[in-house]
């Protein structure tokens, strides 16, 4: 155990501290921006980011992944805050944590295997689009100064790293913020700053129990929000964990991560923060900057709080345009651009799943619904595809006799096709249906077989069903075949 603590925390100290610092600098504008999306004071998002990052560093299942206040979650809170206020948001955050811990104990993280790659890509792209769209209010009905500042900010972010030596050692989002803030203060530009968006933290967070009545009515209000938050939070966290797994070629404990997210959200709710989850963009920045261990996440959280509490006078002066530039960078970095190139090469069904996920999310502003639609579509396409793996061969040896041989998968999606493959108009005395190479998966297919047999009988034919036993043995609802070698043997041999 000591060994694993050492490896998770202290195997990469210098890089983890540096990467954590870089991440903290990018977390500040995000936390502020996401607070604004949720309609709360920036301090709610900042406290949340601090708390979630620090707690998840200890209890998370994926070292090196960054969790904090996120846009995906903020979008779901909007109406709750508008209609019921901040205290209900804090209560909902606590409940979200509880639900996520339960999910962790029920091992729901394993359900991620039903989320196909195209759904993940759709999720990531939708997230990027949502983050970008959330910046639009800051860019509408404003003077040209704001556009100029945003453009300059993006210019700094993407061109500064090209400078020799210094470009790779100073985070360019920081340079963007410092330069634009200095410029705005120097010129005395009259544009919106962070200070205009609400209260900033001036003290360390304090423990406080949400000021809501503890009754059923409260539960009825917050539960739908908490359930949505829990699902979206876990989805994004699991997907981000997979991305970090791939990048670092290591494995993570998904169920521990579920519980960790829950604990972090409970902590956040008790310190006056909003619910959060893992962040794809920030985690990529962390890995890119050399962060691998838990220390990087921890440093990111602590450094964020130190900067925010002790430099609040300066942070107040940051023009919103600078934050918008950083957020546009995050959304560009989050978007999977390869997926656009791949549209040409991938099968239509795959593309449809991805696009449907994106469209539904952008329309509903709810990532959970989008993923649900994506998974549903993917399953339907899959069922359709497998359903086509069925052929019925027929041969007639003598006049009045015919043998049908069924090969492939017969289940709800292919039952109709199965029933239609027989020629009932032919006048026959004897029909043989050979099922020894078919798999009957469900009662729909068994019913279809019954129908066929009865129909032939009514036409006056004698029906022999052969191979039925082999076909039905593999069938159906015999769960846990994988641990019975002899069953696997049967399936593999085509029976």
């Amino acid at each position, binding site marked *: 155990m000591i060994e694993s603590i050492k490896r998770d925390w202290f195997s990469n100290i210098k890089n983890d501290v540096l990467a954590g610092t870089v991440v903290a600098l990018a977390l500040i504008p995000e936390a502020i921006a996401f607070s604004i999306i949720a309609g709360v004071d920036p301090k709610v998002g900042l406290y949340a980011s601090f708390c979630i990052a620090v707690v998840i560093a200890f209890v998370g299942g994926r070292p090196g992944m960054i969790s904090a206040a996120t846009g995906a979650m903020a979008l779901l809170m909007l109406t709750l805050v508008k209609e019921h206020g901040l205290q209900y948001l804090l209560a909902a955050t606590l409940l979200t944590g509880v639900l996520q811990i339960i999910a962790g104990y029920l091992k729901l993280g394993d359900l991620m295997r039903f989320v196909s790659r195209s759904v993940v890509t759709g999720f990531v792209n939708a997230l990027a689009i949502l983050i970008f769209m959330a910046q639009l209010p800051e860019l509408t009905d404003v003077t040209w100064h704001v556009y100029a500042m945003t453009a300059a900010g993006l210019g700094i972010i993407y061109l500064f790293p090209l400078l020799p030596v210094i470009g790779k050692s100073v985070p*360019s989002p920081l340079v963007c913020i410092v330069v634009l803030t200095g410029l705005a203060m120097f010129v005395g530009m009259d544009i919106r700053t962070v200070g205009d968006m609400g209260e900033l933290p001036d003290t360390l967070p304090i423990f406080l129990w949400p000021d809501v009545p503890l009754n059923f009515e409260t539960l009825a209000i917050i539960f739908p929000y908490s359930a949505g938050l829990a699902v979206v939070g876990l989805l994004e966290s699991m997907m981000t964990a997979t991305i970090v797994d791939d990048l670092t070629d290591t494995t993570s404990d998904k169920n521990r991560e579920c519980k960790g997210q829950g604990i972090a959200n409970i902590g956040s709710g008790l310190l006056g923060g909003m619910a959060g989850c893992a962040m794809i963009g920030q985690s990529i920045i962390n890995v890119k900057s050399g962060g691998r261990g838990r220390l990087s996440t921890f440093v990111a959280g602590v450094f964020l709080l130190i900067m925010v509490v002790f430099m609040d006078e300066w942070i107040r002066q940051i023009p919103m345009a600078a934050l918008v530039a950083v957020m546009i960078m995050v959304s560009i970095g989050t978007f999977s651009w390869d997926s656009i190139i791949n549209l040409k090469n991938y099968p239509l069904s795959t593309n449809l799943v991805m696009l449907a996920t994106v469209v539904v999310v952008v329309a509903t502003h709810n990532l959970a619904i989008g993923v649900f639609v994506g998974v549903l579509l993917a399953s339907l396409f899959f069922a359709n595809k497998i359903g086509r793996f069925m052929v019925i061969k027929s041969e007639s040896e003598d006049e009045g006799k015919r043998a049908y041989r069924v090969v492939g998968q017969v289940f709800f999606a292919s039952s109709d096709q199965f029933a239609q493959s027989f020629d009932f108009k032919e006048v026959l005395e004897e029909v043989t249906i050979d099922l020894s190479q078919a798999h009957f998966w469900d009662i729909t297919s068994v019913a279809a077989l019954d129908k066929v047999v009865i129909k032939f009988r009514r036409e006056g034919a004698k029906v022999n069903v052969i191979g039925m036993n082999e076909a039905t043995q593999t069938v159906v609802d015999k769960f846990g075949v994988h641990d019975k070698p002899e069953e696997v043997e049967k399936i593999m041999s085509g029976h």
Partner: protein
Amino acid sequence: MNMITACIDGSKISAYVCDAAAWVSLSLDTPVKLLHVLERIIVPVNDNLSGAIGLGSREHLLAEMTVLDEQRSKVALEHGKHMLEDAKLRVQNLGVADVQLKQRHGELLEALAEAEDETRVFVMGRLGEGHDVGSQAIGAHLENAVRAVRTPILVTVGEFTAPESYMIAYDGSSTADEALAKFSESALLKNLPAHIVMVASETTEHLQQLKSAKDTLVSSGRNVIATLVEGSVQDALSLYREQNNIDLMVMGAYGHSRLREFFVGSQTSKMISRSPIPLLLLR
């Protein structure tokens, strides 16, 4: 249960591990398998702290890191192969005909757990890479390995010479009796004179325990001298070792919980780190 598995790394002690493995292999007439585990070392990827992510950052990053890991792993793999070849030669020169090589990715503990089913005795060095042979520390892996496996482990501490006699440190506990019973049934060290030493006050109970332990060993056809000595465990055992020219120590390992050892300190760790002779650890 048909292998001697010897754990090899880049350290100097690996050569002595080979010697020890060859000796066990010849005395038990069992083939040797040399195991080298390529552990993933976390090294920073690059020094890019710009914190900016743009078009296709994730894909580029993945490609970049894959290339780096690939290069690094290839070198490590090559290096490990040479190490194993050298070790094989050394073991073969000592007269072992059947020597197999095995390289695994991942953690040492995983590899040990995998190899356990086919292993009769593990052979490991006290210290791995990154220590001087002379230093009196215990390698980072050894304690975890000893805790993880149920198979006897032969720990080499320095240059290995074939032992002439061995002593068993016996404490009268029920776990010690179990370990002893298992040991006496095996063919390990069957033909060497054994000394069974118990450090305790001279009471009838202790004498009785020692007697029955001795009987267990004698019944398996061993030549046994039993002695009860008083004093502190460490000092009494090392005194006995010096007086009787013992060159191999057999003992049970890590019988207590980690919690207790955290407060009391581990007897086993102390014994391993101070021993000038190889140890055979029984679980």
